[in-house]
């Protein structure tokens, strides 16, 4: 960690700084190089964890960047990743293959478990990398990012990877140096392959993709890297106040995951829970099916099977809540001579991790009714999610499982912090299921045998004393039959819940996403939805007016009416 003072702000930076809305933006080529130099200069003074810089973009927005390297040798610094609401990884890259494959990158920052970042989370964030040109050491070739075709708006999907590696940047991306099959990796999908030629990045007529939101994407100067929608110069009139009598801005206080209540069935002392190994179960089996006279006399009297409350399998690794060493198991007051690992908790929480739900188109198509979402929860099934509640959010899933009954609840927490939903972090869904596969336990029941054994002499004697030879014979036969039948089978529990052992075990959000159909230049004739107040002189291109605030044109009424009619039909400014 390091404290960094810039522009009057004391910034605490480091792997887990968790700064909000961190961005790296390079506004122009010259600045870009100076920024890189700035990072380089600072890296010398930082540990291997981090190197930082912070500056402001042209809109006065503070920009924060962090870099990582093993040593002070600049040549090792190759990647910088800037993620939304945090600063992401920066990998070193000093060993062949020279450029780490992207799925080797990890994320640091607000994602709780950096070792388990998913591909989706990675895709949801942006990155940039610096390329060392081997021939011009220590010259770094920056690829700053991608920008929308239309000036001003800097779209979210700016993940890209350029392969192979040697590239340069001077206002264009000279992919002719990049080898035979260079390509860009944009927002989870490959764009058109780019072969050989040099593209003028300042020419907005060249598009890698013709779809809005997803594209058009241009390598453009200035170029930006940002983990989410760039809002610096984006204007809209989304109301925060006015138009109603609400409290405006009350965002609630959120519901976080709770630990299960402390008291549980184990607290009563009446029951014990164990997580036996297969070997320990084999020992228990031997005890329950023992033909040992003493064991069976005890069992016949104490009926230990009655003390078995539940036996089953849960799809969990319980090693973390096993007490050690193993202790002897008592069934009622019968010592079994079998030791098992006792469980210290009745309820256990399983964190299934976090999934980011990224926009694909960057427009209304990413939301209902166009896109829908469902959630597969193991042992519960598919449940519907309101997509508008989870889009552009991080979805965190935790299970709480009662090991006694196998009942489980899945709690879904949604975390979002952006322009429209500034501070959401709350549980929004809870679903219930059961994950226990119950298995019956059996044992030998010699009680009837011992009863017959002890009662037979009396029956025979009574029969003999009766003087009735037939009755005597019957008594002898009955006693003999009971002895010859052998022990009964005791059983505790039933077999149930077998489905829990067969279901898919990985929870998953399923998005059902439309494919946008957008004619080239459609916006030039129809326009994008707007409903924002503008002076028309601030606009260019096709513009359709909903209403004129005050028609101050010095013209006849008929002409003014004509002007309004034409504006409402759409004009080209």
């Amino acid at each position, binding site marked *: 960690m390091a404290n960094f003072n810039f522009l009057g702000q004391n910034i605490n930076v480091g792997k887990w700084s968790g700064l909000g809305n961190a961005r790296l933006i390079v506004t122009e080529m010259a600045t870009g190089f100076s920024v890189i130099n700035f990072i380089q200069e600072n890296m010398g003074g930082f540990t291997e964890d981090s190197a930082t810089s912070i500056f402001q973009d042209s809109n006065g927005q503070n920009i924060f960047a962090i870099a990582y390297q093993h040593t002070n040798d600049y040549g090792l610094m190759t990647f910088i990743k800037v993620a939304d609401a945090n600063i992401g990884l920066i990998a070193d890259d000093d060993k062949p293959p020279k450029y780490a494959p992207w799925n080797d990158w990890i994320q640091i920052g607000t994602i709780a478990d950096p070792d388990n970042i998913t591909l989706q989370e990675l895709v949801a964030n942006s990155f940039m990398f610096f390329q060392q040109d081997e021939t011009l050491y220590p010259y770094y070739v920056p690829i700053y990012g991608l920008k929308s075709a239309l000036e001003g708006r800097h779209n979210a999907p700016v993940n890209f990877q350029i392969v192979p590696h040697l590239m340069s940047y001077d206002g264009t991306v000279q992919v002719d140096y990049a080898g035979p099959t260079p390509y860009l990796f944009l927002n989870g999908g490959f764009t058109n392959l780019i072969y050989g030629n040099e593209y003028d990045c300042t020419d907005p007529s060249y598009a890698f993709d013709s779809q809005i939101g997803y594209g058009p994407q241009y390598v453009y100067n200035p170029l930006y890297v940002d983990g989410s929608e760039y809002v610096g110069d984006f204007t809209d009139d989304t109301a925060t106040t006015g138009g109603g009598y609400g409290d405006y801005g009350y965002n609630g206080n959120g519901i976080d995951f709770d630990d299960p209540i402390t008291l549980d069935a184990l607290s009563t002392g009446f029951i014990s829970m164990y997580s036996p190994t297969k070997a320990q179960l084999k020992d228990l089996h031997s005890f329950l099916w023992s033909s040992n006279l003493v064991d069976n006399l005890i069992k016949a009297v104490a009926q230990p099977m009655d003390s078995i409350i539940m036996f089953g399998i*849960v799809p969990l*690794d319980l090693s973390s809540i096993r007490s050690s060493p193993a202790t002897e*198991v008592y069934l009622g007051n019968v010592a079994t001579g079998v030791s098992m690992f006792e469980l210290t908790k009745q309820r256990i929480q399983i964190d299934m991790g*976090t999934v980011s739900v990224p926009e694909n188109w960057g427009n209304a198509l990413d939301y209902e009714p166009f896109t829908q979402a469902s959630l597969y929860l193991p042992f519960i099934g598919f449940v519907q999610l309101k997509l508008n509640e989870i889009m552009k959010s991080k979805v965190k899933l935790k299970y709480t499982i009662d090991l006694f009954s196998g009942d489980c609840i899945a709690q879904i927490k949604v975390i979002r912090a952006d322009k429209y939903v500034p501070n959401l972090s709350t549980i929004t869904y809870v679903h219930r299921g059961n994950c226990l596969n119950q298995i019956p336990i059996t044992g030998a029941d010699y009680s009837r045998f011992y009863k017959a054994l002890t009662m037979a002499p009396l029956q025979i004697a009574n029969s003999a004393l009766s003087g009735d030879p037939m009755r005597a014979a019957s008594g002898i036969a009955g006693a003999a039959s009971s002895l010859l039948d052998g022990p009964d089978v005791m059983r505790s529990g039933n077999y149930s819940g077998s489905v829990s052992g067969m279901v898919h075990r990985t929870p998953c959000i399923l998005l059902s996403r439309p494919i946008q159909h957008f004619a080239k230049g459609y916006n030039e004739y129809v326009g*994008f939805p707007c409903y924002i107040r503008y002076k028309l002189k601030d606009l260019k291109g*096709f513009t359709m007016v909903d209403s004129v605030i005050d028609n*101050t044109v010095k013209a006849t009424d008929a002409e003014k009416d004509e002007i309004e009619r034409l504006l409402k039909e759409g004009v080209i400014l």
Partner: protein
Amino acid sequence: MTITFYKIADDKRQVSKTLNSTTKIKDSIGVIKTDCSIMEPRIEMAYDSQLITANYMYISDFGRYYYITKIDTGAQRLYIESKIDVLQTYATQIKELDCIVARQEAENKSQLYLNDGIWKNLQIKQTVPLAFPKSFDKDGSFVFVTGGQS
């Protein structure tokens, strides 16, 4: 009165038309043919073959621009019907207007999260699985619950 004739290729929706030496045909003299509105004046003038190709004009006396909607000829005369182009005529003032804009060409001036019916999509849908990073345990564990002392 002096009339400046043009041949333009601009979209009628274009507020500011391309009026320069390239599009200009010539200045000429004409008169109002009959009583008419200044929004749709009818002009009579001497025949001029150059003007046959004109589709736009400016009447300096009116200070207004017009689309030429019809040209008739007869007896060495031209009869021109026209309709005012309020967009070009009042372009400067129009650009100063303060408006609620319903649709706009530029992404950065628009609100792409509004759904006003513009968004078209195929019936085909992509299913995108987003798997959580952790799964339930493949091996599982036994749980054995008993009553009595431990």
